[in-house]
């Protein structure tokens, strides 16, 4: 059993621990890393599914300061849990869909209450390299095209349930094809709105597709994940941004 935070009032009760899968440690090259420097990622465990509306409801019931009528505006904007009908209910159609319109603060708190944490971007991207059959499908054109196809479509009117896209090499579902996911250090992503700026000394950090210093100019999907992470602030709720936890 994982440990609970002992600070009173910080995290009430415990939720069921969802299934997790082991990701073997490895190396991940951040998109804008100078000289293609690799980041070492230690082995970790990751939730098999993104957190669902049902999961999040259990958390809100135990921690009612996170319900949508009472949440503090510094921790969530007015999109928070927009898809829920009220503080403690939503249309059963979305019970098993990933919870979205949750802020980074809410996601982080949820994971902490489970004795887990949000993944680092490097951990998330390492787990996301896997296709159904390979641990590292980052050079596989078919897999990249499949991911890119999802990334270019607008959101469906109702989000599909977790587990509905694909199960990757590690046994983790829906790393692509369902929702974007919060990471712990999302705001260290290195694009700005000005994707073409050459302002040094940060000139290795900024550019759109085709930058010499981005390490894989053909992996457009990873540009898009970086762009999405750069466009949000910690209190934002976005209709296609959910999360899962690691430890």
């Amino acid at each position, binding site marked *: 059993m994982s440990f609970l935070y002992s600070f009173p009032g910080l995290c009430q009760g415990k939720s069921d621990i969802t299934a997790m899968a082991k990701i073997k440690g490895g190396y991940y090259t951040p998109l804008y890393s100078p000289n293609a420097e690799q980041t070492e990622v230690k082995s970790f465990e990751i939730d098999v599914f993104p957190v669902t509306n049902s999961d999040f409801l259990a958390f809100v019931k135990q921690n009612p300061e996170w319900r949508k009528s009472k949440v503090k505006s510094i921790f969530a904007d007015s999109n928070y849990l927009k898809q829920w009908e009220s503080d403690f209910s939503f249309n059963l159609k979305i019970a098993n869909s990933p919870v979205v319109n949750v802020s980074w603060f809410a996601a982080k708190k949820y994971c902490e209450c489970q004795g887990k944490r949000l993944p680092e971007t490097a951990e998330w991207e390492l787990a996301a390299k896997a296709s159904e059959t390979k641990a590292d499908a980052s050079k596989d054109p078919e897999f990249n095209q499949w991911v890119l196809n999802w990334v270019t479509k607008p959101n469906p009117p109702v989000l599909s349930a977790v587990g509905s896209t694909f199960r990757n090499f590690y046994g983790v579902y829906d790393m692509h094809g369902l929702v974007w996911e919060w990471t712990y250090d999302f705001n260290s992503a290195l694009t700005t*709105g000005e994707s*073409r700026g050459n302002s040094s000394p940060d000139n290795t950090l900024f550019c759109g597709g085709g930058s010499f210093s981005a390490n894989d100019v053909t992996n457009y999907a990873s540009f898009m994940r970086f762009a999405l992470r750069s466009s949000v602030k910690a209190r934002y709720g976005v209709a296609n941004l959910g999360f899962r936890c690691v430890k």
Partner: protein
Amino acid sequence: MKSGNYFTKLALFLLVASAFITGCDKKNSQSGNAQNDKIIGEEVAILTFAPDVPPPITRNHATKMIVNLEVIEKEMEMMDGVKYNFWTFGGQVPGKFIRVREGDLVEFHLKNDPSSKLPHNIDLHAVTGPGGGAVSTFTAPGHETQFSFTALNPGLFIYHCATAPVGMHIANGMYGLILVEPKAGLPKVDKEFYVCQGDFYTKGSYGESGLQPFDMQKALDENPDYVVFNGKVGAMSGENSLKAKVGETVRLFVGNGGPGLTSSFHVIGEIFDNVYPEGGSTLNHNVQTTLIPPGGSAITEFKLNVPGDFIMVDHAIFRAFNKGALGILKVDGAENKSIFSGQQDDRIYQPEGGAVQSMPETNAAPAKPLSKSEKLELGKALYSSTCIACHQADGKGIEKAFPPLVKSDYFASDPQKIIRAITHGLSGPITVNGKLYDGVMPKQSLSDNQVASVVTYVLNNFGNKGGEVDAEDIAKSRK
């Protein structure tokens, strides 16, 4: 007393200050003093979808223009049967046309629809400032950003999304035009139209049906499948043709969103009396074809002297006839035989296509035979992509140029004649429904099944009697 010192300092200060003021004036005169204009009042800008343009500006002072532009990602048709996931400013490609006046203070609101998968932003080439506004408008789905700028320079400017990967955002249709009218306004014309060229890159080839994904390798190679005006094949033809009358003056605001190709913009049968090359302030005259770079524009003006169909093309001509860069301006009114006598040679455009050169016959495996309903469906698609250019959507052809297919007596008694016209081409004088036609139909490089389909389609439409032909009939006619 220190007054002496004081006056000296004051005099010195005034001298220096006046030097700065005159210095500033010199800089201002290049941009027409726009940055000093007093802003009076405010209004919400009228934005329009292509091919419409907001009305000319009549006020003679600067104002605050509030622009509200939404980003909407949506699946739409590129041509019959071909679907694509477009990313749009306002819901269509190109994005909405924005019209402001030199010196205006533009308060720009960019809204990203909550259903969008991705964040977007905007770079308006009319903006003087970092990223053309891109830095200030990076907007997550379900959010809105705002920034303001003064339109310092007059001209016709492209705007486009600049979110990484920039090439892909532009390739998916995120561009449009913003016109900054000079203070004196533009000379009055009878009709103004908004035309915007763009190139599109799909996994499948031109015309391949279904939802086509974006092909990044083709985009990197600058090898598009579609080069179109106003976001799709046929956006300005058939019932969507632009319309005007003899005697009217027409102004085209033409943009090129790219992302890859430069346009050689030409209107067949017309000469541009005036061109503002690159959408700038210099005027050129009597221009046949003007270059429009990706991320650029041009304004062309011409007076209509005779009636007819005047066809807009990218004169890199394969793009016009094989990739969709074609639009029609229909002009009605009285003929003027002295300006144009009506000789068909002057009006014909020769679709070159692949049929002019004979390709060596490959030994392909025989295709499986099609049912009549399959032929009708395929025939219809082929007709609207290939035959329609000359024989028109209604099958009536063009007087004295392309014969009609409607109730045609040419092939009513003998379908072999229509088959041979397609497989062998046809030239020399023929009489159809009592009228003489003396043109050239190039032979078409279509497979036996394709020819059988389009012939069956024509026989069963346009008031003809019906019937059906098979791939075998076609093969026989080729011998």
